[in-house]
């Protein structure tokens, strides 16, 4: 009997089958029961309707470290019929695609409204199969198709022997439909009961007293929140004093724009849906010029279109936080698939050379903490601060204590923003050349703080110049800020284990958790490794990293891209050879990818391992579109 430890895959036809509603209800209930989850909308295609979607939900008594591999304990298939748009039936996708990944002795639950499926091969592996005519029950018996997924949820609760008295479920329904919702609440409870009934019939018919899995509520230590990386980032930004946000809709960054549109007004701020990519960043620069902590968010294509404005931020010294929720490129690429392909662009894009800071979050928690840090750094160094996440992180939800968020807030302190009192004396110079390279900023509207700001080369007063010494002085002043940053603010990579004499395996961004998972597995197999995770990528902290890397036996970099972008930076800065484990097939790293990759590098002597299976995952090809 497997207690409080189960991984589900829920699949169906995008938009139509409401895949997320199931993981959503179950996820929330499980968290309220004091258990922990990882949940994500992973499988969606970048069309609105009709493609196959599948979402993992990992449940644990202790917080699950990562999504692990592509296998699942329980597979739920929501498709029920023929897609009216096509002669080809999508409605067996979920079982066809993911059935092979269900563990022996696992569970398969599917909607049998139109017909049952031949699942002999699954049963042969001891998998318990439950055909459930959920849609039929909803339509015929309950006369409300919408509740079909509640029927499924009811079945799931039974399979997991969870919340059998519906205490949590009713509470959830009340929270959702409120007082006046009595009738619809009862309908949903009834739907759940019908689903449960079918499951119980099948169990008795097969003489199964249980199904091998069980969820037991545990005492809860205060309110918990189920949030994804985008939510955490948004909250961090609000706490950090961000009061202007602009973005042009794009997957997977749109959610941040929606968060800001929803919340900023409460806090006196404004969010702007740009009419194009450049209007967004330019408006944000204008707001920042006016003194507001500002940010923009986009993904690959939208970042590429803003490159010229990074230079403006850098040369005019107008602070800006630039969020890039990376997705699979290049060009339109695969908009709903994750990748880490934008690091070198963040570091080197744009003509000429500007000071810039590049950060990348590795977990939902880091999305929150680094967001707060990003705004402080932008303010202090008056330059663009790139904040990289990726689709896995942006959409991946986990539960965290509400108290954790409040505990990690800190009061906003605007660095070097001059007030009228500071400007009493005459002759304020916006670009005053200082030791640290940082020139105190004034904002328009403050007497005595008048400035002339320009993206052309300028002197201390901001007047345009091409005088060679003035050019050199101003160029060097700007770049000196990065020396100051390396002295005062950069953070070294996080080190897990001792690097001495063992392979050092390096990651950045969302590969952090699979990497730590892999470290545990490798150690269990007797292969010790040191895991290194970067959040502060540029300017590169050579002085901190190089000595560290020299202590290991090998330097192995794990990245979700084709060339190994962090690996390239490490070689350039540290002059140390790197080996690489690379994945760029649009799927996140699985623990096994890294474990296998490290073995190949160590024992087969490869220099680069490219992971990702060669056999097509899909039985039916679909046509996800560019967005």
């Amino acid at each position: 009997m497997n207690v409080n430890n189960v991984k589900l895959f829920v699949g169906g036809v995008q938009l139509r089958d409401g895949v997320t509603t199931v993981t959503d209800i179950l996820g929330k209930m499980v968290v309220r029961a004091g258990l922990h989850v990882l949940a994500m909308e992973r499988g969606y295609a970048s069309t609105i309707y009709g493609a196959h979607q599948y979402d993992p939900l990992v449940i644990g008594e202790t917080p699950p470290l990562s999504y692990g591999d592509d296998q699942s304990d329980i597979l739920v298939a929501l498709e029920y019929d023929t897609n009216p748009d096509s002669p080809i039936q999508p409605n067996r996708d979920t079982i066809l695609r993911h059935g092979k990944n269900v563990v022996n002795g696992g569970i398969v639950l599917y909607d049998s409204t139109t017909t049952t499926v031949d699942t002999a091969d699954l049963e042969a592996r001891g998998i318990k199969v439950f055909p459930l005519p959920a849609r039929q029950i909803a339509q015929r018996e309950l006369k409300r198709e919408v509740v079909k997924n509640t029927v499924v949820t009811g079945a799931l609760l039974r399979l997991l022997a969870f919340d059998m008295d519906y205490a949590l479920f009713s509470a959830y329904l009340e929270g959702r439909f409120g007082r006046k919702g009595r009738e619809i609440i009862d309908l949903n409870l009834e739907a759940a009961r019908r689903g449960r009934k079918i499951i119980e019939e099948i169990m008795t018919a097969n003489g199964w007293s249980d199904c091998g899995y069980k969820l037991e509520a545990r005492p809860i230590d205060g309110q918990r929140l189920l949030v994804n990386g985008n939510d955490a980032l948004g909250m961090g930004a609000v706490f950090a004093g961000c009061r202007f946000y602009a973005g042009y809709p794009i997957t997977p960054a749109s959610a941040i724009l929606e968060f800001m549109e929803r919340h900023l007004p409460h806090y006196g701020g404004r969010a702007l849906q740009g009419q194009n990519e450049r209007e967004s960043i330019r408006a944000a620069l204008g707001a920042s010029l006016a003194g507001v902590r500002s940010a923009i968010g986009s993904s690959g294509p939208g970042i590429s279109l803003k490159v010229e404005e990074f230079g403006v931020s850098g040369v005019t010294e107008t602070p800006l936080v630039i969020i890039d929720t990376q997705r699979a490129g290049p060009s339109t690429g695969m908009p709903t698939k994750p990748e880490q392909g934008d690091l070198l662009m963040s570091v080197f894009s744009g003509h000429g050379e500007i000071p810039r800071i590049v950060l990348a979050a590795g977990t939902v928690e880091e999305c929150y903490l680094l967001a707060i840090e990003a705004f402080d750094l932008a303010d202090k160094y008056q330059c663009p601060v790139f904040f990289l996440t990726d689709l896995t992180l942006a959409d991946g939800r986990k539960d965290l204590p509400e108290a954790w968020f409040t505990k990690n807030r800190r009061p906003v302190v605007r660095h070097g923003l001059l007030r009228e009192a500071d400007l009493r004396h005459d002759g304020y110079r916006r670009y005053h050349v200082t030791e640290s390279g940082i020139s105190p900023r004034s904002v328009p509207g403050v007497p005595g703080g008048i400035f002339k700001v320009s993206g052309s080369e300028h002197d201390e007063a901001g007047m345009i110049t091409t005088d060679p010494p003035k050019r050199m002085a101003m160029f060097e002043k700007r770049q000196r800020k990065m020396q100051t940053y390396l002295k005062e603010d950069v953070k070294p990579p996080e080190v897990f284990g001792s690097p001495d004499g063992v392979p050092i395996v390096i990651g950045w961004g969302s590969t952090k958790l699979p990497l730590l998972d892999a470290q545990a597995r490798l150690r269990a197999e007797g292969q010790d490794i040191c895991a290194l995770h970067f959040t502060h990528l540029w300017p590169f902290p050579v002085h901190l990293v190089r000595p560290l890397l020299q202590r290991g036996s090998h330097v192995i970099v794990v990245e979700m891209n084709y060339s190994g972008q962090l690996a390239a930076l490490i070689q350039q800065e540290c002059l140390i050879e790197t080996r690489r484990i690379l994945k760029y097939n649009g799927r996140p790293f699985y623990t096994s990818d890294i474990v296998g990759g490290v073995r190949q590098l160590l024992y087969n002597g490869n220099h680069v391992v490219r992971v990702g299976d060669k056999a097509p995952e899909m039985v039916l090809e679909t046509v996800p579109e560019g967005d």
Partner: protein
Amino acid sequence: MATQAPIKLWEQNATPKHRIQWCPGCGDFGVLNSLKAALTRLELMPHDVLLVGGIGCSGQIRNYLNGNAFHGTHGGALAYALGAKMANPDLTVMALAGDGDTLAIGIENFVHICRRDPDVSLIIMNNGVYGLTKGQNSPTHGLGMTHEEFTEEDPPFVDPLRLAITCGASYVAQSFSGDPKHSTEIYIDAVKHPGFAVVNDFSPCVTYNKFNSYEWYKEHVEHVPNGYDPTDKSAAWQLLDDFDKRGKLPLGTVYRAVRRRKAHSRLPIWDEELASVDPTPMFQLYR
């Protein structure tokens, strides 16, 4: 500084030690002087004014004037101005740019800012060419010329006034730097207008546009008739058509329509303004 009378502030050149680098006779000198007069008459304090310059000969004007100035990328002026004004509605925000900057590369902003209608004034220093890059045709090139046939390479010009009205600008006017008294009045009017004000100012390029010269403009400009009511949109359209038929260019306010807009106060920027944040509205979504 805050104590000085505005009059002095605007008359003096912001950069006395610098030579003004426009060709002798450049129309932008006229714009500069009218602008100084207008800002003086408006009794604005330079620190409350933000001048966003375009990239081009014309954009230099921001540095020949007092007040805060921003100069970013070619074509971006209006979007920076939008952000600054949204952030701090107490500022007087002006965009000062060329016809190329505004209508060629900057069209991506022009159309949408007309729709958004921020309380920003735009003065287009229109000379029919890209002056700073040595005289290539701008989107307003060809005014007054008769074309037999067009090619994709060499298209007809676009009329900034009609375009602005079509896109929803709430104030649209035209002036001529050869008629500085009138421009001054128009600029004052534009700044006072509580919405996006577009002023298309004919500012001759004496070096690269020999066709649309002062003389040429003098022959073709004509003030809008007194009693003309700019608040009537179809009248505005009528006016533009009439002037076209007569081969004339109207000077004056062609269209004005105050749009109802939700007021907004300056966004919080100081520590004390950012101190208290109630997280509940955010948290409750995820409980």
